[in-house]
């Protein structure tokens, strides 16, 4: 076992997860392929969404894959960074909006 939890070479081995459970892996990769096709949203738009989500879930493999993919599909550096800010704003907002819950609780118990 490697000393690092993450290894960029492992990204290429993603497809190998089927070695341990082929049926579910096949279903997942079929679904994955279908999701990213041009449809109501273009493959290009989906790539930018994937980039933002990759940052939200902080997956280094996904960031690697979708930084290349989004740039290849023609998104500019500034557009890609704005997408990351969207992820950041939602994550930050998700914490902050819970402040209302905190306020509710404090108001409930405070004199």
């Amino acid at each position, binding site marked *: 076992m490697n000393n690092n939890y993450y290894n960029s*070479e492992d990204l290429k081995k993603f497809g190998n997860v089927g070695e341990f459970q082929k049926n579910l892996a096949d279903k997942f990769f079929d679904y994955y392929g279908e999701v990213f096709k*041009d449809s109501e949203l*273009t*493959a*290009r738009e989906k790539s930018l969404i994937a980039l933002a989500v990759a940052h939200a879930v902080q997956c280094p493999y996904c960031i690697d894959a979708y930084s*290349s993919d989004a*740039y*290849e*599909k*023609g998104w*500019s550096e500034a557009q890609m960074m704005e997408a990351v800010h969207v992820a950041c704003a939602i994550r930050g907002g998700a914490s902050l909006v819970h402040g209302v819950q905190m306020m509710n609780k404090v108001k409930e118990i405070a004199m």
Partner: protein
Amino acid sequence: MTENTAIKHEKTGKISLHGRGYDLSDAHKQLEILEHIQSGNLVPEPFYQKLEDTRLYPLKPKEIEIFQLNIGKMCNQVCKHCHVDAGPDRKEIMTRETMQQCLEILKSNVQLNVVDITGGAPEMNPNFRWFVEEIKKSGRHVIVRCNLTIILANKKYYDLPQFYKEHNIEVVSSLPFYTQDRTDRQRGDGVFENSIKALQMLNGLGYGKENSGLVLNLVYNPAGAFLPPSQMALEKEYKDALLHHYDIHFNNLFAITNLPISRFLDYLLKSDNYEMYMEKLITAYNPVAAFNVMCRNTISVGWDGYLYDCDFNQMLELKVNCKTKHIREFNVDELNNRDIIVGQHCYGCTAGAGSSCGGAVV
């Protein structure tokens, strides 16, 4: 090149690898790198072996239809990805005598129905207009690969759009992206702005407009170490963006993969992207694209009259593998029966949707 010209080009940064005396301007050095560097953890499978698996080896021509003529390495631009290593300092251009030999071949080989003229900037060859007119007399469809900025580079080129129109030339032009930033990074400062002006001039004469019969196609090349996206989707984006921002019309977009040759190879090595890029190309090998590669119906002629399987083999100085090696001894039967020379660079034409001078092949 005189010393003064060399200094002038050096100052403007407009000088080829050849002009700088770089090792990599040597075709043998390039081949050595392509054939011998191991690609990371992936042992690069030789291209011919992939073809063997696809039952395409040795690679044989279908009938040769496209006569691609590279009439010189001279160019007004020095693009970072140029596989020709073209530039203002390059003086190798086709002579009128060699052009005359090409015309003779066209007369005796009717199956060569498309003549594709490229460079450098082919228009910088002083015999360019005469040559095009002579080819048109033989009734061939003529494509000129025009870099657009040449039209504005000097007064003597301003009427090129008119010349193209008069002779019903299909114009194929590089515009690596529909934004200034990516285009100028690849092709040089100010190239995008001048390309837009040139496209507007061509549109003004009817080029790229519906029902005009005047064909204007654009070429996309990735501005970096990555592969082109879907040609069809990209064409739609180009059309929307160019129409919306600049009122520009064109017919088709050709998405072309950069081959690891010459200045693009230099870029890959210097940016430490070579191994990753080769791995990408190899992983993306597509047997259907291999079946449709352009070298199967094209013959490429160099500025000095030598014959090659394609413009890339030309730049790697890999002359056709048969007795007939020069335009003066052109023998179509021999050429149709030759084995096409392949190497690791060929993975560039078989990756993904494939790549040719006419874009994707799948």
